[in-house]
């Protein structure tokens, strides 16, 4: 029978739509209302100090739209008047300085796409498969094109004394977030950013100014940046002692585990994005990233790791940025055990969860970059599972 979508006159063919003055700041189609950040209410005591997750299974390419970048706050979203914004640099410097936002915008800028991954991304999966959806297992990540001033230029402006070896960026929000960062990193590639994907930072991402610490755990990317102190030693504050340290089986804990190891995940198919079209041509896709460089290669298996094939990388390959891969195949309707395995530009290969547990035990929680498995059944429904080695 003829398709009524073709043979019948649709309302949008007949009636005029809204004019150019109707949507001065555009929003997604009303049919995309399900594409949102999601939180897990039972996970935290209070939504003000909590996290939500990027809907990775609904996205493609390598850039995360600003409104879908996952959020993690420790004292809620600070709403800062840009006219009252100040950035102070103090400590072991020749001249302690104060910059306004206008001052910052007079320094030379750079543009870079970087991923930001929370160190706790996939932390719920350390001991076994738990949450059904890559949004929840891997959604504490986003990938954004930043515009900002190299932190190096601001530090040069204040003049770092010889004894200065560490910096302490601090947020202006109600948690006054702080992290110790070695000066070497600060001078290498950190940015003081005020734009994301071309527009002003969103309030929940640190408006008007955040720190960008490429490749390193998201907690260090201090939002609502108000101050940078230079010191001769690290500060050992809460977020680098009580939290974001990796407890090993012998009771000792790794600290300063800043770089995010290479990791990947298949975003489609996945539990929130089942195969609905039955057997035949099927697009498998996913994302990969490394805090140590680029991702030249991703391998994919359909049988739980017995046989692997190289996926097809597509899109720009930037340093410390998200990469997109595809693997097209004809599904025969039989159950699948899907995995992806990232190789980064240093030669490091994403390990299995069991390989990680061999080294770190089961109490480590943070920095879980183990290989993810989705089991797809005959109906195309996907589930989060683990498989034998």
């Amino acid at each position, binding site marked *: 029978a003829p398709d009524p979508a073709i043979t019948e006159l649709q309302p949008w063919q007949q009636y005029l739509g809204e004019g150019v003055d109707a949507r001065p700041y555009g929003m997604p189609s009303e049919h995309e209302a399900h594409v949102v950040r999601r939180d897990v209410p039972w996970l935290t005591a209070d939504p003000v100090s909590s996290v939500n997750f990027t809907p990775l299974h609904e996205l493609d390419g390598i850039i995360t739209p600003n409104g879908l970048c996952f959020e993690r706050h420790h004292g809620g979203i600070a709403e800062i008047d840009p006219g009252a914004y100040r950035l102070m640099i103090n400590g072991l410097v020749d001249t302690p300085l104060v910059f306004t936002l206008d001052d910052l915008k007079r320094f030379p800028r750079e543009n870079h796409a970087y991923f930001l991954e929370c160190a706790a991304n996939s932390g719920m999966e350390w001991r076994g498969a738990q949450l059904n959806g890559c949004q929840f297992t891997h959604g504490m990540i986003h990938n954004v094109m930043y515009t900002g001033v190299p932190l190096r230029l601001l530090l040069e402006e204040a003049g770092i004394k010889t004894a200065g070896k560490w910096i302490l960026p601090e947020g202006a929000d109600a948690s006054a977030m702080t992290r110790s960062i070695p000066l070497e990193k600060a001078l290498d590639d950190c940015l003081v950013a005020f734009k994301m994907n071309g527009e002003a930072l969103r309030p929940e991402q640190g408006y008007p100014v955040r720190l960008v610490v490429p490749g390193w755990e998201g907690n260090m990317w201090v939002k609502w940046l108000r101050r940078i102190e230079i010191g001769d030693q690290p500060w050992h504050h809460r977020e680098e002692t009580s939290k974001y340290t990796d407890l090993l089986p012998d009771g000792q804990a790794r600290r300063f585990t800043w770089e995010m190891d290479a990791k990947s995940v298949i975003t489609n198919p996945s539990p929130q994005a089942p195969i609905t079209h039955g057997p035949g041509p099927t697009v498998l896709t996913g994302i990969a990233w490394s805090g140590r460089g680029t991702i030249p290669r991703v391998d994919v298996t359909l049988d739980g790791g017995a046989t692997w094939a190289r996926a097809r990388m597509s899109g720009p390959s930037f340093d410390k940025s998200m990469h997109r891969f595809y693997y097209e195949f004809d599904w025969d309707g039989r159950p699948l055990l899907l995995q992806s395995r990232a190789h980064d530009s240093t030669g490091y290969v994403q390990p299995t969860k069991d390989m990680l547990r061999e*080294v770190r035990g089961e109490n480590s929680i943070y920095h879980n970059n183990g290989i993810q498995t989705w089991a797809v059944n005959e109906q195309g429904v996907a589930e989060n599972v683990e498989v034998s080695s």
Partner: protein
Amino acid sequence: PSVPEPADMEKVADGSDAMEAADGASRHQAAAPSRDGGYGLGRAALEEEVAAWDIDIRPDGQGLPEGEGDVWTGEELYVAQCATCHGDFGEGAGRWPQLALGMGTLTSDDPVKTVGSYWPYLSTVWDYVHRAMPFGAAQTLSDDEVYAITAYILYLNELVEDDFVLSSSSFADVEMPNAGNFFMDDRPDTELTAFSGEVCMENCKEDVQITARARVLDVTPDAGGGEGTDPTQTPTMDEAMDGGGQEDASAPAAAAPETGVAETADAASEAPDAGATQTAAADPALVEAGAAVFRKCQACHQVGDGAANRVGPQLNGLIGRTVGGLDGYSYSGVFADAAAEGVVWTEAHLAEFLSDPRGTYQGTKMSFAGLRSADEIAAVTAYIEAEGTE
């Protein structure tokens, strides 16, 4: 043409040629240029401006202001400002962080990371309480108050005696038990090489079995963004995010034993006097042991001559008293309900309650985790009876 290393690229100070990166992606990058002597932007920070914002404290004491605070002052502040979330004894209420004890658990399947069991530096406590606490009223505590609360947290962790005074000068004398158990990231030695190299592409496994399934727990929120289930036995996000313990995620979630309040009340009503009438002659040793246990209660409860209602009701004549029946104390709803039903505190019912306060009376505002040992319950009951009898 030679491929510049990233370090060299940093030095390129003019708008130079596009360079071919090692991975083949084309990059049109030139580092934003430095300028000798700087750009002359910004202004000098005034001393009072630096003083207003420079609040950080370091393990070596750098940044600590003059001041002091004692344990008992800290207790009063803590009960008023901190206990709602962190529990009266640092045990943590709901999903808020536990602050006290947990020693000896770091190698177990359920590590409890507290100030006492895990935090390597005392300065971190002072700094964090000062910069971010109380939650929702950051930086409202005076320096002396921060010293006092920090002293009380040390006391809750059994790291100082109750006459301890924390000050800028006594600060360095406090030793944190877990200080020696942190080491620098060793992944270059333990993981990076081991996880690098050739990979298997074919015939890598003979047999693949599914060993774990997420649906065993079924804790994923509903697709519609609904509430989802509330799995009390699964790791909380605070734990995953912030580093607390995790339960065994591969085990099915054991439903929390839901002792129905009405059921409990009925059971107690059916045997109301069994315990109340048996006020045996108190064993002096048991009462003495109970006095020690009662230290866990005395932040909120008084018993004995002149006992008054504080955070919790006074406990004189408790055994035989109607549950939730004391005039002049504002009980939570579940206790008011029990009072309406005429439930009476017997030794048995008190034991049930103390072993699992929030399971026995769901919704009680008593934010106490309970006593695990039957001996402790018997002792503290004997103490309450001995002290609270005319």
